[in-house]
């Protein structure tokens, strides 16, 4: 995926980060919200903080906005230490989860609020607000009050207001949480479009992994005050660095077992995993042999597991890892079906298949004996 033209300043050792968290710790009384966190975020990134509620993602954002100060460590924006800079003196704007529109001011006045505080001239304000109204397609509603417009329009006003001052950094706190699914998807693309047009750095906080994957250039998965993994969405999905990340992002089969180095003379390398009595060992040719003799987990995405009525041929690519089981449940999603297959020892394996044929032609049904199989590089072997 990564080539010379793609946007990836985090791979460039000379790139200067816009935001630097340096060993930041934040405590609220005895509760540790952020623990010794170090992270760089680069200009023009769309950076997503993803995690369950209480993982510290909102605290990180509020520290960037200046509403919370770190207990220990430093936060730098554009090389400047932010410790003693109050929120109103930062070139950072935030879009609030509740939108926080001023109910007594019209849409126009809401957008102009920040510009007026900067003491801009009347004509400058007029021009800028008009530009923002055009960008967010709100021209028709400029003289309405926030309670006189719909939820989606309110969300766009909040965005326009936070963008009006042309901040170096825009913070978005669960910006799309209040919208229904269809509008949310539409708005996600709108956000990406606006981010591209304005060149602003976006940091978004969300607990919705799909949202983070769709909009972000990099995703930071957080758990209990720490960043567990930071990577591009495809890497986070395909190459999770821990069971936590693999389990948090998307759907996954987790098979725990004991690793041994592969001894056959094929030269393929990798490991085999002894994972259940009376089941063949699983082969992972992409795994590091350093994991030998450790307990490991094979993380396997359902869409990488094939399902068939006949055993796949032993010498084929999916023939090496093949397990027999019974179909317990079929989740029909329209374009996809997820099959829940129970193996002889009770383990459930989820396999996903694209429904390329109409219903009448599909041949696997409940209670059928089937084979689930996957290639030796389909899964990711994780320690633990």
């Amino acid at each position: 995926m990564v080539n010379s033209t793609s946007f990836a300043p985090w791979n460039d050792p000379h790139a200067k980060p816009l935001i630097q968290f340096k060993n930041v710790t934040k405590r609220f009384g005895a509760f540790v919200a952020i623990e010794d966190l170090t992270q760089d975020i680069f200009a023009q990134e769309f950076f997503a903080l993803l995690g369950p509620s209480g993982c510290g993602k909102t605290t990180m954002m509020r520290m960037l906005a200046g509403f919370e100060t770190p207990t220990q460590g430093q936060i730098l924006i554009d090389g400047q230490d932010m410790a003693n800079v109050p929120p109103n003196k930062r070139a950072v704007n935030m879009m609030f989860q509740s939108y926080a529109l001023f109910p007594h001011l019209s849409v126009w006045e809401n957008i102009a609020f920040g510009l007026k505080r900067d003491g801009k001239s009347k004509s400058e304000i007029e021009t800028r607000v008009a530009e923002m109204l055009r960008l967010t397609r709100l021209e028709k509603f400029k003289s309405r009050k926030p309670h006189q417009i719909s939820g989606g329009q309110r969300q766009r006003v909040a965005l326009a207001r936070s963008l009006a001052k042309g901040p170096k950094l825009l913070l978005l706190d669960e910006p799309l949480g209040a919208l229904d699914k269809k509008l949310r998807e539409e708005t996600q693309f709108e956000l990406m479009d606006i981010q591209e047009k304005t060149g602003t750095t976006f940091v978004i906080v969300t607990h919705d992994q799909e949202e983070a994957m769709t909009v972000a250039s990099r995703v930071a998965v957080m758990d209990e005050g720490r960043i567990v993994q930071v990577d591009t969405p495809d890497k986070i999905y395909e190459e999770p660095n821990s069971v936590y990340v693999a389990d948090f992002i998307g759907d996954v089969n987790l098979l725990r077992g004991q690793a041994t180095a592969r001894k056959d003379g094929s030269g393929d390398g990798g490991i085999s995993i002894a994972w259940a009595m009376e089941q063949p060992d699983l082969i992972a040719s992409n795994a590091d042999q350093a994991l030998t003799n450790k307990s490991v987990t094979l993380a396997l995405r359902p869409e990488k597991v094939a399902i068939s009525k006949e055993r796949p041929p032993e010498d084929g690519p999916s023939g090496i890892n093949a397990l027999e089981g019974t179909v317990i449940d079929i989740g029909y999603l329209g374009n996809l079906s997820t099959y829940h297959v129970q193996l002889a020892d009770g383990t459930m394996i989820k396999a996903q298949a694209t429904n390329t044929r109409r219903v009448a032609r599909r041949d696997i049904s409940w209670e059928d004996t089937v084979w689930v199989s996957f290639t030796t590089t389909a899964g990711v072997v994780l320690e633990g």
Partner: protein
Amino acid sequence: MRRFSRFNAVSLTLGFAFLYLPMLILVIYSFNSNKLVTVWAGFSTKWYGELFQNEAFLDAAWVTLRVAVISSTLATILGTMAAYALVRAGRFSGRTLFSGMIYAPLVMPEVITGLSLLLLFIGIGLDRGVFTIILAHTTFSMAFVSVVVSSRLVSFDRSLEEAALDLGATPFDAFRLVTLPIIAPAVISGWLLAFTLSLDDLVIASFTSGPSATTLPIKIFSAVRLGVSPEINALSTIMIGLVTVGVITASLVSKNTALRHERDAKAAERT
């Protein structure tokens, strides 16, 4: 339509009679042409005319009005600041003590408040007059304002203030341009409460007033001790009229605002 039972009719009549019969009698007798208050001798508005000739009453009314306007304004400013500080300060040691101390004047017997203020004014050698009444009324009514305003502030969405700060407003601007306009209804009702408290206060005013300043309640009270005069009835009727107009206007305004708000919100969801 629900049937209006006889029991309901009776209780409603009794309730309203209990509340308003005394006032109704007062209003009727204010139009009595007879000098003897309790003997009806025909309709007349002459006592209203006499009232406006009575220098002493007019002076007292003027003092009362000045005291009420100034003290309720001061109490509103101080009470709002106190409420804001207490709600915004979050948790700190001694918070319960502080908020308890703010609300103590609500339950303190007026006699004690009046007496303590009197001792204070004598102690620091302050001549009693309009100024001391204003101080006294400010002191006891700011507690009421603070209760009204802080109950609004508790439900105030803090992120609105944060948004203002985030957009570059100074903390004072954030309060002036965002918080204050939004909590304005509570501040106004706090002012009205302080105003009416000051208007009808007799006890504290009599402790803290001097020979140079007499408020209307003191005047009425001392006049009544010499016998009820038809002029007092007229004066009271005017006050009832003013209060009625005020209350009805306030409730109509807030009802209309709420209705319009609701209609707008419904219209917005449709588009």
